[in-house]
C-alpha cells in the first residue's frame, strides 16, 4: 500500500465522477493539442513548400490567391499571363531563375501542373520508379496520387478540364505515366506534373500528331510559333536588392502581379490568428471548468471523507500524508486527463487528415509528437495542484477527535 495507490482506490470508488472530470479535461487539452500540431506542421509545411521561391508572378488579382494557387495548389489561379511578357521578365538582371507553370486540368481532383524539369530540381525530387517526362502527354505522379489512384508507370488516363473534379473530360488524348516520385511530405505528393506543352495541346482544337512526338523543353520556356499563355512564374532573386526592386517594378510597370510567398503566408496566419485565438480561448474555458469540476468533486467528497481521514490519522497518518493524499488525487486526475487529451488530439487530427486527402491539411502527420505536449502535461498537473489545494488544506486541518465522536 502507498499513497498513490490509496488515492487511486478512492478515485475509482467514484467512477462516474472521476470519468467525467477526466473527460472534460481531456476535451480541453485535446483542442489545444490539435491546435499545436496543426500550427506547427502547417507552418513547417508551408515554409518547406515555399523554399526556394522568392516571388510568384501571375495575372492581376488577389496576391494571396496567387500564392495559394501557384505555390500550394489549393486555390484557383488568378488567370493566365502572356508568355512573351513572362519571358522578357525572366531576362531581367535581378532574376536568377524562373520556372513557368501552366494549370487548368485535373484528374480525379488531383491537379495537373505543366512545368519544366527545373521545377523537379527546385523540390529536389527522387524517382521511386520511372523518369521525368520527355515528350508531350507524359506525366510524373506525386507519391500520394500514385498511391490513392493506384497508378503506375505505363498507365494511361484522361484528364478533365478545370481544377475541381467535376468537369468535362479531354478525351482526345491520354496522359501516360512516365514516373512516380518518392514521398516528400511536400505539395508535390498531391500533384500530377507534366510539360507545359501537354497542357497547351490538350486545350488546342486541332491535332498535330507530329508535335506530340517531339521532345519537350526541359528548362526555360517552350518554343511556340503561336501566341501562348502560362499561368504563373516562380522566380528566384539574383541578389537581396531584387527583393526591394523587383516586386515594385512588376506591380507598377506591367500587366502582371508579383507576390512574395513569405509575406502572403504571414499575412494569412495573421488572418487565421483571430480564429485560432477564439478556439484557444474556448479550450482554456473548458480547462478552467474542468479544474473547477475537479475542485468541487474533491471538496464534496471530502465532506463524506472527513471520517475516513480521521480514521487514517488514528492509524498513524500524519497531517502531511493526508495533504499529499488529496493533492495526489488531483494530480492523478489531471495526469490521466492530459494523457487522454493528447491521445484524443492526435486521433482527431488523424481523422481530419484521413477525411481530407486532397485539401490543405493533407500531408500532415497525426503521429508526430512535439515537445510542447510536455508543457500541456505540466499545465494539466498545475491545474490539478490548484484544484486540490483547498481540499487538501481542509484534510490537513481535520480535527480527529471531533470527527470521530460526531
Amino acid at each position, binding site marked *: *500500500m*502507498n*499513497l498513490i495507490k*490509496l488515492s487511486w*482506490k*478512492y478515485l*475509482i*470508488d467514484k467512477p462516474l465522477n472521476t470519468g467525467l472530470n477526466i473527460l472534460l479535461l481531456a476535451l480541453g487539452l485535446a483542442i489545444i493539442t490539435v491546435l499545436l500540431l496543426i500550427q506547427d506542421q502547417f507552418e513547417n509545411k508551408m515554409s518547406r513548400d515555399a523554399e526556394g521561391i522568392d516571388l510568384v508572378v501571375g495575372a492581376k488579382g488577389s496576391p494571396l490567391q496567387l500564392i495559394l494557387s501557384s505555390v500550394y495548389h489549393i486555390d484557383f489561379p488568378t488567370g493566365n499571363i502572356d508568355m512573351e511578357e513572362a519571358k522578357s521578365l525572366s531576362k531581367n538582371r535581378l532574376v536568377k531563375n524562373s520556372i513557368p507553370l501552366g494549370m487548368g486540368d485535373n484528374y480525379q481532383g488531383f491537379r495537373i501542373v505543366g512545368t519544366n524539369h527545373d521545377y523537379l530540381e527546385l523540390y529536389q525530387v527522387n524517382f521511386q520508379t520511372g523518369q521525368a517526362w520527355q515528350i508531350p502527354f507524359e506525366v510524373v505522379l506525386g507519391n500520394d496520387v500514385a498511391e490513392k489512384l493506384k497508378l503506375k508507370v505505363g498507365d494511361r488516363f484522361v484528364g478533365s478540364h478545370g481544377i475541381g473534379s467535376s468537369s468535362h473530360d479531354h478525351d482526345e488524348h491520354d496522359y501516360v505515366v512516365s514516373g512516380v516520385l518518392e514521398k516528400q511530405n511536400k505539395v508535390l505528393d498531391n500533384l500530377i506534373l507534366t510539360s507545359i506543352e501537354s497542357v497547351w495541346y490538350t486545350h488546342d482544337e486541332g491535332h498535330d500528331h507530329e508535335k506530340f512526338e517531339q521532345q519537350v523543353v526541359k528548362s526555360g520556356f517552350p518554343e511556340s510559333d503561336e501566341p501562348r499563355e502560362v499561368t504563373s512564374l516562380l522566380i528566384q532573386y539574383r541578389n537581396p536588392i531584387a527583393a526591394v526592386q523587383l516586386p515594385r517594378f512588376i506591380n507598377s510597370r506591367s500587366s502582371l502581379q508579383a507576390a512574395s510567398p513569405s509575406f502572403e503566408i504571414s499575412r494569412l496566419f495573421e488572418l487565421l490568428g483571430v480564429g485560432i485565438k477564439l478556439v484557444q480561448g474556448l479550450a482554456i474555458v473548458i480547462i478552467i471548468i474542468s479544474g473547477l469540476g475537479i475542485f468541487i468533486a474533491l471538496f464534496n467528497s471530502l465532506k463524506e471523507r472527513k*471520517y*475516513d481521514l480521521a*480514521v*487514517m*490519522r*488514528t*492509524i*498513524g*497518518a*500524519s*497531517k*502531511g*500524508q493526508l495533504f499529499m493524499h488529496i493533492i495526489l488525487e488531483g494530480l492523478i486526475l489531471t495526469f490521466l486527463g492530459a494523457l487522454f487529451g493528447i491521445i484524443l488530439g492526435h486521433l482527431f487530427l488523424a481523422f481530419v487528415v484521413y477525411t481530407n486527402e486532397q485539401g490543405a491539411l493533407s500531408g500532415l502527420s497525426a503521429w508526430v509528437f512535439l515537445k510542447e505536449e510536455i508543457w500541456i502535461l505540466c499545465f494539466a498537473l498545475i491545474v490539478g495542484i490548484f484544484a486540490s489545494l483547498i481540499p487538501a488544506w481542509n484534510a490537513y486541518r481535520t480535527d*480527529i*477527535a471531533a470527527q*470521530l*465522536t460526531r
Partner: protein
Amino acid sequence: MLSIKNVSFKYNNSNSFVFPDISCQAGSQLLILGESGSGKTTLLNILGGLLAPDKGEVLIDQIPIYSLSGAKLDKFRGNNIGIIFQKPHILGPLTVEENLSLANFFVGKKQSDRISQVLEDLGIGQKRRSLVSTLSEGEAQRLSIARALANDPKVILADEPTASLDDVNASKVIQLLKEQAEKYHAVLIIVTHDQRVKDHFENQTIMGGAL
C-alpha cells in the same frame, strides 16, 4: 506502561472533566465503566493521543505523549496505540487486507506477515481480498479490531466495542480482545456503559458516580 496523572479537560465552563489517575502494567487489562456523558470517550481520546488534555500528563512507555509534536505523535500513535471504535470506521474503497496494510504503510513499516495471522485469528482470513462493503456488521467490527492490532501496539483502546452487538457477538468480541491483548502482551483498556462486559474483567474503574 501506561499512566495518567491529574488529567482534566474542559469543553466549556459547564462541561468539564477531571479524570482519575490510572496506571497499567504491560499486559494488564482495565475496564472503565461510566454512563453516557461521564467523559469516557473524552478519556479514551486523551489516552489515544487524539485530544490533548488541558492539564496533567499522559505517559505511554515512559514517554509523555503530548510533548511529541505533530507528525511524531501521529507516528507514535500508529506504532503503539490501537484504537477500536463503537462503529467499525473502516475504509470503504479498500479491501480487508488493504485496510490493514495501510496501517503498516502510514508508520513506515513493510507489510508484515502479521496481517494474515491477525485476520486468521479473528476469523476473517478467507475474506482478505473482499471489499469492505461485502462484510457483515460482526465481520466489520472484527476487521476494525484486526486493524488496531496491525502495527503490534503496546496499548489497545476500545470505545464501546459491544454497544451495537447482540449478547453472543458481544461476548465473542470481548473474548477476542482479551485473547489478542494477552497474546501480544499489550495493555487493554475498554470504556463502556455495557453491563454485559462487567463480568469479564477483574480491574474496573467507575467514572461519574456509581452504576
